[in-house]
């Protein structure tokens, strides 16, 4: 029975009004709440309710790069070394000192702290450490366990004596010390090391045993994980101010996929903290009684990789034209907030090895048009430039894990349309996006980022045998498009000294900029929304939450 037209209009208006009222209500609800006292001394006790946008998929540490996994692994495991998230300096943790490294960085010797136990009572000893790093360094494909991206050139480990372990590499591996400080190298008990990809998955969370400040006490598949503090925890990184058991009694990690629900729940005081507050929602946390933490991910910036082996982008002038034709400031101003600083190079300013290459990324549409003319691309009948019968139409992927990727590409679409370049967004879910982005003939410009607080992060992103975001390596025929780029990147991971790596990293960044292979857009943060009475919240070096020092001021 169709509704009479005027009535239908009234009905729609009514719905819109209800929605608007509800949204306004949501915005103002936070203002009046929570007159937290000013407590100088941390208080022990209480349970933190923390919201994640997605459910975790595996607790195998080398796969902890996925944020929902990392948020758990970071709090239930310890690592050999500790990386200060502010200075990115490495410090002792389960290893009592920084490792002794031989001259060409192919042997690392660690001394292991005594008396550390896993939550099942077994000892974290030298043999267990070697077993951990052996698995992470080599993986085990029969159990579908992958090797850690952070550990390069791994050969084997040896127990030297009860408190000493030594690791051997087939080639220099200067990133190893940092690698054993990341959540990808979270130490787990012997029983956990025997697991398969299946038993590291949902339904088995309580059997994943670490030595960290928290223990997984309960799991509701797909919705909730309950962490409990370990009362006998006494081996926090010595450099941390808080030693001993965590202040909190426990944490409820709850999945709340819908952005407005996640934000609203914290604003309304039903939860204490939430990860992934999108830029448009940040303003709600400016209200009294609420707080926002934007943690740097200290790695390769959110940006574009131009697949220079595709004929459309093979001419450097076309790549330079695209770079000059994109107004990055406009993107950041329109879609993001001050927590998303404009990128000044391939790496975040706080990342190890950072070099300023911002002069290559100036917005200059006049120059862009001139470059395209010079390269022989002339406007066609529909306004899109053509050359030899081919239209200048390029496809971008949608970076599903990255904030507002589709909107970013949409703005780029408008900006480049003015120059006569057609931009399209490749549709599809995660599997389709991944499949499309492995083929330069489907996706010519790849939108992505990667967080990792080591020099190696640059190599991780662009090296042909790592993420290969430029598709420098053709998977089908194994050919390399630009071997000089590979040589420069490989040097970062094989130069033994920090000075040498800094220089190698700078050289690679300079080359990426000169060749117009990439356009960094902004430094991507991890944004958390908190109740104001949640104190001591911090993140590890790439933005995963650490709850060991959190306390509730209420």
């Amino acid at each position, binding site marked *: *029975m*169709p*509704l009479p037209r005027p009535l239908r209009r009234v*009905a729609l208006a009514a*719905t819109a009004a209800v*929605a608007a009222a*509800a*949204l306004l*209500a*949501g915005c103002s609800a936070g203002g009046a709440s929570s007159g937290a006292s000013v407590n100088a001394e941390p208080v022990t006790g209480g349970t933190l*309710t923390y*919201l994640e946008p997605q*459910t975790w*998929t*595996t607790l195998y540490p080398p796969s902890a*790069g996925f944020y929902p996994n990392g948020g758990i692994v970071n709090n239930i495991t310890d690592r050999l070394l500790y990386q200060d998230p502010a200075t990115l300096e490495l410090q002792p943790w389960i290893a009592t000192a920084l490792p002794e490294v031989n001259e060409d960085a192919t042997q690392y010797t660690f001394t292991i702290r005594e008396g550390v136990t896993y939550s099942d009572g077994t000892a974290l000893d030298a043999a267990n450490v070697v077993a951990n790093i052996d698995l992470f360094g080599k*993986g085990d*494909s*029969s159990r*579908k366990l*992958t*090797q850690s*991206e952070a550990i390069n050139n791994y050969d084997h480990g040896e127990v030297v004596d009860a408190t000493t372990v030594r690791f051997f590499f087939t080639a220099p591996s200067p990133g190893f010390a940092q690698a054993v400080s990341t959540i990808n190298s979270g130490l787990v008990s012997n029983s956990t090391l025997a697991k398969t990809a*299946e*038993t*590291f*998955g*949902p*339904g*088995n969370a309580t059997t994943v045993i670490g030595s960290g400040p928290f223990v997984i006490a309960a799991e*509701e*598949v*797909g*919705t909730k994980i309950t962490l409990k503090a370990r009362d006998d925890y006494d081996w926090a990184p010595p450099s941390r101010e808080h030693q001993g058991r965590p202040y909190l009694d426990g944490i*409820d990690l*709850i*999945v*709340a*996929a*819908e952005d*407005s*629900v996640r934000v*609203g*729940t914290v*604003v*309304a005081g*039903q939860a204490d903290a939430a990860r992934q507050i999108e830029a448009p929602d940040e303003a709600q946390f400016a209200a009294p009684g609420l707080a926002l933490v934007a943690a740097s991910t200290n790695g390769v910036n959110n940006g574009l990789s131009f697949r220079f082996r595709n004929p459309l982008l093979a001419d450097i002038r076309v790549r330079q034209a695209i770079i000059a034709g994109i107004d990055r400031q406009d993107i950041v101003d329109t879609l993001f907030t001050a927590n998303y600083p404009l990128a000044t190079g391939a790496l975040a300013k706080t990342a190890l090895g950072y070099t300023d290459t911002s002069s290559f990324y100036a917005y200059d549409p006049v120059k862009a048009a001139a470059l395209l003319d010079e390269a022989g691309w002339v406007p066609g009948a529909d306004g899109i430039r053509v050359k030899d019968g081919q239209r200048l139409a390029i496809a971008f992927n949608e970076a599903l894990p990255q904030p507002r990727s589709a909107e970013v590409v949409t703005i780029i679409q408008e900006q480049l349309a003015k120059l006569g370049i057609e931009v399209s967004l490749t549709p599809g*879910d*995660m*599997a*389709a996006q*991944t*499949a*499309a*982005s*492995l083929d330069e003939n489907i996706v010519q410009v790849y939108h992505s980022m990667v967080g990792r607080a080591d020099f190696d992060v640059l190599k991780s992103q662009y090296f042909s*045998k*790592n*993420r*290969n975001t430029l598709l420098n390596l053709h998977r089908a025929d194994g050919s390399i498009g630009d071997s000089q780029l590979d040589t420069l990147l490989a040097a970062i991971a094989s130069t033994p000294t920090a000075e040498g790596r800094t220089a190698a990293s700078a050289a690679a960044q300079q080359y990426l900029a000169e060749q117009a292979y990439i356009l960094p857009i902004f430094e991507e943060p991890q944004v958390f929304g908190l109740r104001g009475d949640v104190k001591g919240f911090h993140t590890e070096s790439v933005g995963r939450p650490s709850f060991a020092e959190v306390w509730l001021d209420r």
Partner: protein
Amino acid sequence: MTYVLRRLGQAAVVLLLAYTVAYVLLAALPGDAVVARFASPELGLSPEQLSVIREAYGFDRPLWERYLESVFAFVRGDFGYSVQTGASVSTLLATALPSSLVLAAWGLGAAILLAVGIAVTATFGPRVIRRGFRSLPPLFVSIPVFFVGIVLIQVFSFRLGLIPVINATPVQALILPVATLAIPLSAPLAQVLIRSIDEVRAQPFVTVVRARGASTSWLLWRNVARNAVLPALTMAGLIFGELVGGAVVTESVFGRAGVGQLTAQAVAARDAPVLLAVVVFSAFAFVIINLLVDLAYPVLDPRLRGARR
């Protein structure tokens, strides 16, 4: 008896077809779960490492071989493991199903109550509000489910603080999702009920009953309702599909770990073992519900008894 057997045979064919079509479609789409999980540049695995993993999953073998194997495994009750997480599909379903069944049952129940309420008010209610109630079904069916859910949460949970979203009791956790699901679900039901009641009321026997002094409520419950309920029952069987679709959205908005949320995640990750199990379970439920509806017909309408032998 042969009728029931024939229906069971049909059900088996429907299930096999559903499984096969889903299998072929999933195989035809670009990319697969191994690509989504392991080839994702996030892990930075080399092509050689990837091919080893593909072999470990058996993805290097021919499609028909894997298809046949999976069909037989399914028949044995072995649903395999999620490629995305490695969790066993039976564990995932065992966790998700009860929550979804409770939501679906209450959602359908509330939708029927709501639909009857709307239909009765729209046809027998005070003249001034009939028109308004008649326009409710088109309104309800045109509001997106996620919008209803978000508005309900904003108003009743965040603004009025009546129902917590987090750490709610099982009953509290049901109220808003059930309401969210019931609103769009009630729309087609109410629509059909209103039309049936209108049609039945226009029939001559109604005038006769009225002339003999029957009150409106007598007329409604004893005469009109019995005749108007059959089309609505058919509709109730058919809206099961809408129930599943609505549950996907509702469960995502409210963070309920049901089949809907499981499906949404599996679709995003192209997690074939999970999707196939969900498809077969949904098809199974659809077949069962429609079988029950068909069997209920002769019970409700004496004219249909003995017609099928």
